[in-house]
């Protein structure tokens, strides 16, 4: 027997979310049926609003509300205007902001360079970084915080080659042992990375 069309459509839509198979989607769809009308309405509105009312900051590429462009961080003149922290996505900005330890600016690439996935240097938010740096001579340092995998590293190396000739200091986040982890328990690769990224005392 077939489900009535409205619920079949709902199940189908849930399966478009990452990590959700038909079984979970069916459970979620039936759960949705049992929810209050108000909650369902607010849910559907926030889905639409997330797409409609958000945009990427023209300056740094982070997600921001449409009537807040440039974003709240780019507008904040009390932040250190000399440092730009380059990250892969907006979630990384949130993580860094939660540390409350960094007070400079950001640039969100919204991806990494990955030719095998069809993404070249011009397909991520990178040309705008180069433009931004040439327009703002007060930026003296770029910290690259892309992930420590092959593509994150390639993106970082590319940035370094592009920016260093312009006299901008380019630094890379150290990766290695996490704070509090015991050397005994670190796996071999983490140890090797930690040794490579050692700092002078």
């Amino acid at each position, binding site marked *: 027997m077939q489900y009535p069309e409205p619920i079949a459509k709902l199940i189908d839509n849930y399966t478009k979310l990452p*990590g959700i198979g038909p079984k979970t989607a069916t459970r979620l769809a039936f759960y949705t049926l049992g929810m209050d009308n108000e909650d369902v309405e607010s849910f559907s509105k926030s889905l639409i609003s997330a797409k409609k009312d958000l945009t990427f900051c023209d300056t740094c590429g982070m997600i921001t509300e449409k009537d807040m462009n440039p974003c709240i961080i780019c507008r904040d003149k009390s932040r250190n205007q000399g440092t730009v922290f380059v990250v892969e996505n907006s979630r990384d900005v949130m993580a860094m902001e939660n540390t409350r330890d960094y007070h400079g600016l950001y640039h969100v690439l919204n991806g990494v*360079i*990955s*030719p*095998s996935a*069809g993404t*070249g*240097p*011009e397909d991520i938010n990178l040309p705008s970084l180069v433009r931004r740096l040439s327009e703002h001579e007060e930026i003296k340092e770029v910290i690259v915080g892309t992930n420590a995998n*092959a*593509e994150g*590293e*390639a993106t970082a*190396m*590319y940035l370094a*080659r*592009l920016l260093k000739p312009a006299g901008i200091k380019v630094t890379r986040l150290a990766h290695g042992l996490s704070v509090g982890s015991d050397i005994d328990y670190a*796996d*071999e*690769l983490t140890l*090797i990375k930690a040794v490579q990224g050692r700092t002078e005392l």
Partner: protein
Amino acid sequence: MGENAQGKTNLLESIYVLALARSHRTSNDKDLIQWQQKETTISGRVHRRTGDLPLSLNFSNKGKKARVNHLEQSKLSQYVGQLNVILFAPEDLELVKGAPTIRRRFIDMEFGQMNPLYLYHSAQYKKILKNRNAYLKRLQLGQTKDTVFLDVLTEQLVDTGSQVILARQAFLKNLELAAQPIHTEISNQQEKLTLKYQSSVDLSENTNIDQIKSQFLESLRQQYQREKSQGSTALGPHRDDVQFWVNGKDVATFGSQGQQRTAALSVKLAEIHLMQQETGEYPVLLLDDVLSELDASRQTHLLLAIQDKVQTFITAPSLSDVAKQLIHAPKVFHVKQGQITVE
């Protein structure tokens, strides 16, 4: 024991996959899942000197999950190596004469089990190579003119690829040392086996990592025009090969089929010793329909070398006379239409 196509090889394959998290038969994990099924799980208990260790692997359309002692591992390099296996199948007798890919896969599979760092470097290398080839294609098609990013990929390729080459050279030296006495014995003191790493990078006498790197980089520089016009990486460990020499001659070209098989057998047996040296324990040996491919003398050498030491799974239509003599109290299972019964 069982006739062909009854599921004997599937049983050995599942042990192999449990150890290496991939099949020797296919590079597509989806092929491991039964038709019209969504997932498959292989689990086993490994009896080691330090105690029993449960391993389990789950394959589904979302990828694979590897568990050691019920705990999910975030990296496969932490999983592979918990159970060491060596598979010896008829196609391994082609090791000497077959296509270079057979020898490269041999090194990647066997060495990777013993050395997680090698496993990591060779996986990284493959990823970087894929990116570099894709970028060369873009340059070839004129979709980009930016060679700065190609330089970045070249640097990454050289860094990782040189580690792969260096590790392979060291592994082959050890393998040669372990294979030589075995080969001498099987050939009745008539032959001396040597293994040569044939790199597509002109290495001459370069042995340290910096020399390999600079030579690799230089070789790529010379090939740049060719790479750009072909849209792919011209050289590197993915194009390297191993040569088997006996008494100063390349066996693949100048040796008899018997000599080629003796060389392949010696190398396979040497691996068992190497793995025992590296890990302190003998690997599990899987002999997939290979005994019947060997003559009585080579069967004898093989079975004596593992007798009472190495846990071995053998598949065969029936046991040969040599095998009956040399295998003490074998546990025999019959495989028929996917059903396994104890004799």
